[in-house]
């Protein structure tokens, strides 16, 4: 009503002899008038008259397909001889949800332009009076049918545009969807309808929506899930009753999308039974902005450098630092040789790892960083190795004495072999850790051709070995190292304890991979190690023989450990979550539920920290409950190709990976590796 008074006053003020706006009609919740693009028209000319409706705040009228309820705006023209009217150029609709019901309609001030043509025989000086009977259902919480009639006289003569109304009508026409280049297809499979679109104009299609002209094709109140492909777009939703009989003819409608903050739309005719090839699905990659070869190499270099500080590596590195310190006041040439040998050990081990990865990949296996830890044999062997090193650091035994070849103190000997094997050992113990910057680089490398993989891994190796090369070559650094002395023995002994701690952690991992049998075998192997040490301390051939036998047992035992499938999904139970699978994700998406997926592994330290400090906390659990978010866990502790494939899709080669699917898009958002409550909440709330 208020809008009517304002409109009426404006009209009174602006009313000339021949107005290009009719007397506004207040029909209750809407004030309607006819507006014309021309004050007067020439014979034979085309021009536009629009029904202009000003809706009260919060009220809406309906599009040509009103959606679940409602009725379209209806216009009937009463025209004099010599004038013809076209169809309504409908404005872009918007989905208007009311509880579980979704309507297609308009709020605010929608204009309904119609093209008019004046006959060439129209007499100049005459007046055409155009009359419109209009009807619309206007709804807020209740619905009111309203109707009215308006007439607009237009002079025939010279063509005179009305600048004001023409601008408004032109804007409405520009926003009204026209038939563009977009090709479309629609298919129904089971209880899913897939609409595919190609040759899209520029714009953001992440919230694209298809409005069909007809009812009964798709469920208006069901979400339309967006998948963006390299060459197009697909929307999946649920079918309606018209599919019960064979569908004939194309499905016409309007596809809306965002273009720089403005809603745009284009008319599309979907060919029934056709699924267009939209190209490879575009999923968000972990590294926004795209990883190039060079950023991957630089990332690997820096990541390798930081890897030295990771808890799994630091003790091993310290041993080497010790031996360098020992010789720090010796000849520089010796130090340089050692540094290079260490680097060679690192590089050779990385090279070997890379070749194994490439070989397995060529053989069709899906693997990633840390893949060797998916083998319980490797985990068991590493646990035993760390135990041995710990004992050695404590001074429980010295290598060398009896058995030659098997018993060089490889890591401590300041000879060629010693430096080389320290490098190798450092790399092996480093693999469970991922340093910042590494995840992207390694993910990129594993998805790239073999040569690139090699280049990135070599950069990682160089970064990893860099501290020692720097010590050897940068003058002054060497003298900064502490002077050797009795403290070194104490320090060495202290380092034994992180080694034991790491061995305990690996044994725990093993308990999840291989169950209690695996733990038993590993602890028995440790017993054999202790026995071997004790035997070797004895003199005489028998002791040595028994010692050698124990060593063999300690080596052989981890090889007998096998994965236990039953214990593979331990994280699922711990987190009170559901087991992840692509089909479960699809099912939940069809139900319109948000989903949180945690890709984790028992041997992944970052994963465990996030689970303990964030995911297992009550605020996150409450958040999941309140938003009806499904919590899925993909446990990669043991080898699983399905999970590896999914990780690769997001440019990752390892865990953790956190995905959030909200109910607007098929593609999930990737969360950072360091989780917080706020990050999760925002990702779920994101529209």
């Amino acid at each position, binding site marked *: 009503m208020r809008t009517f008074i304002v409109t009426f006053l404006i009209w009174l003020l602006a009313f000339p002899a021949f107005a290009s706006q009719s007397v506004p009609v207040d029909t209750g919740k809407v004030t309607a008038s006819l507006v014309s693009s021309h004050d007067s028209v020439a014979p034979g000319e085309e021009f536009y008259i629009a029904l202009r409706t000003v809706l009260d705040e919060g009220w809406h009228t309906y599009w040509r397909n009103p959606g*679940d*309820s*409602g*009725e379209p705006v209806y216009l009937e023209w009463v025209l004099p001889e010599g004038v013809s009217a076209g169809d309504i150029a409908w404005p872009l609709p918007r989905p208007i949800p*009311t*509880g*579980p*019901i979704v*309507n297609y309609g308009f709020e605010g001030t929608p204009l309904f332009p119609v093209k008019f043509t004046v006959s060439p025989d129209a007499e100049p000086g005459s007046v055409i009076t155009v009359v419109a009977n209009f*009807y619309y*259902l206007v*709804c807020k*919480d*209740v*619905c*009111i*049918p309203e109707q009215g009639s308006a007439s607009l006289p237009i002079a025939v003569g010279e063509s005179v545009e009305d600048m004001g109304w023409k601008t408004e009508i032109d804007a409405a026409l520009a926003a009204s969807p026209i038939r563009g280049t977009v090709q479309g297809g629609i298919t129904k499979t*089971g*209880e899913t309808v897939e609409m595919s679109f190609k040759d899209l104009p520029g714009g953001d299609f992440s919230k694209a929506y298809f409005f069909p002209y007809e*009812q*009964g094709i798709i*469920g208006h*109140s*069901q979400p339309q899930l967006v998948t963006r492909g390299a060459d197009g777009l697909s929307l999946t939703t*649920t079918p*309606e*009753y018209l599919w*019960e009989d064979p569908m004939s003819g194309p499905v016409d409608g309007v596809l809306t999308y965002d273009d720089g903050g403005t809603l745009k739309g284009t008319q599309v005719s979907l060919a029934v039974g056709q699924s267009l090839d939209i190209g490879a699905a575009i999923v968000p990659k972990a590294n926004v902005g795209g990883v190039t070869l060079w950023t991957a190499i630089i990332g690997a270099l820096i990541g390798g450098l930081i890897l030295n500080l990771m808890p799994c590596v630091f003790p091993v590195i310290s041993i080497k630092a010790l031996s360098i310190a020992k010789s720090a006041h010796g000849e520089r040439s010796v130090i340089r040789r050692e540094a290079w040998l260490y680097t060679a050990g690192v590089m050779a081990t990385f090279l070997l790892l890379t070749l194994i990865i490439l070989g397995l990949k060529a053989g069709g296996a899906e693997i990633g960083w840390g893949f060797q830890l998916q083998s319980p044999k490797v985990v068991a062997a590493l646990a035993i190795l760390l135990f041995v090193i710990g004992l050695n650091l404590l001074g429980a035994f010295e290598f060398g004495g009896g058995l030659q070849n098997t018993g060089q103190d490889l890591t401590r000997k300041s000879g060629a072999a010693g430096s080389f094997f320290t490098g190798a050992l450092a790399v092996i113990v480093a693999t469970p850790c991922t340093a910042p910057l590494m995840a992207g680089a390694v993910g990129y490398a594993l998805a790239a051709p073999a040569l690139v993989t090699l280049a990135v891994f070599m950069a990682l190796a160089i970064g990893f070995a860099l501290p020692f090369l720097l010590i050897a070559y940068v003058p002054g650094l060497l003298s900064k190292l502490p002077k050797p002395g009795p403290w070194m023995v104490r320090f060495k002994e202290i380092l034994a304890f992180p080694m034991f701690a790491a061995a305990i952690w690996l044994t725990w991992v093993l308990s999840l991979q291989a169950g209690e049998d695996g733990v038993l075998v590993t602890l028995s192997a440790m017993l054999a190690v202790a026995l071997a040490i004790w035997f070797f301390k004895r003199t005489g051939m028998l002791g040595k023989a028994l010692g050698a036998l124990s060593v063999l047992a300690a080596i052989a035992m981890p090889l007998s450990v096998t994965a236990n499938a039953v214990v593979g999904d331990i994280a699922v139970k711990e987190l009170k979550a559901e087991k992840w699978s692509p089909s479960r994700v699809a*099912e939940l998406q*069809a*139900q*319109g539920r948000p989903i949180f997926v945690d890709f984790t592994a028992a041997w992944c330290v970052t994963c465990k920290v996030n689970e303990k400090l964030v995911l297992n906390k009550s605020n996150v659990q409450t958040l999941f409950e309140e938003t009806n978010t499904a919590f899925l866990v993909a446990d990669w502790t043991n080898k699983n190709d399905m999970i590896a494939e999914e990780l690769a899709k997001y440019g990752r080669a390892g865990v953790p990976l956190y995905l959030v699917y909200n109910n607007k898009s098929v593609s999930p958002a990737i969360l950072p590796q360091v989780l917080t409550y706020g990050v999760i909440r925002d990702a779920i709330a994101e529209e």
Partner: protein
Amino acid sequence: MTISKILFSTLAVSALAMAAPATAKIVTGSNVSDMTVTDSNGVQHNLSDFAGKKVVLEWTNEGCPYVKKHYTTNNMQKTQAMAEAEGAVWLSVISSAPGKQGYKTGEQANEWKDAQGAEVTAIVLDPAGDMGKTFAAKTTPHMYIIDEEQTLVYQGAIDDNRSANPATVEGANNYVVAAMDDLKAGNAVAESDTAPYGCSIKYQS
């Protein structure tokens, strides 16, 4: 109790409908037995009580112009009388939430029924919207027909003129009458699924 639980416990529909969200349409041909509802006199009905009879469901809202169109023209009452003559049960359902348009207490519903001369078996009060959402009812009116075997055989509009103008009742094709005629003749319902039209149901949420 969540909507999905209600779905599971009260309605035996096809597995496909089960997997879908609660507001998804139920498939024509689904079995719809075993759902308990309460009428305006406080009497409980279970849909399975009506096995062996046809049941017509009509979602209604007194204030809705489309409902008014069919009551002021006596079209709805005539359709009800036709169904009663054929021995069918007719349940009018009000799913409007308290405070929203069309909501009625039992007493108000009975008064309205008498004032309209509605010939219905019972008026079901569904202020929580459970029954409406189970059937995915969207509009007033929204019509459903269940056959003697408790199978849903029709859902959709009352007729093919989607206007609120009472003048349009004359000459419109009444889908409910047509479906009842098909069933009477022993045929399958020809038009078993149409797009409902009218006001949106004023659900709680």
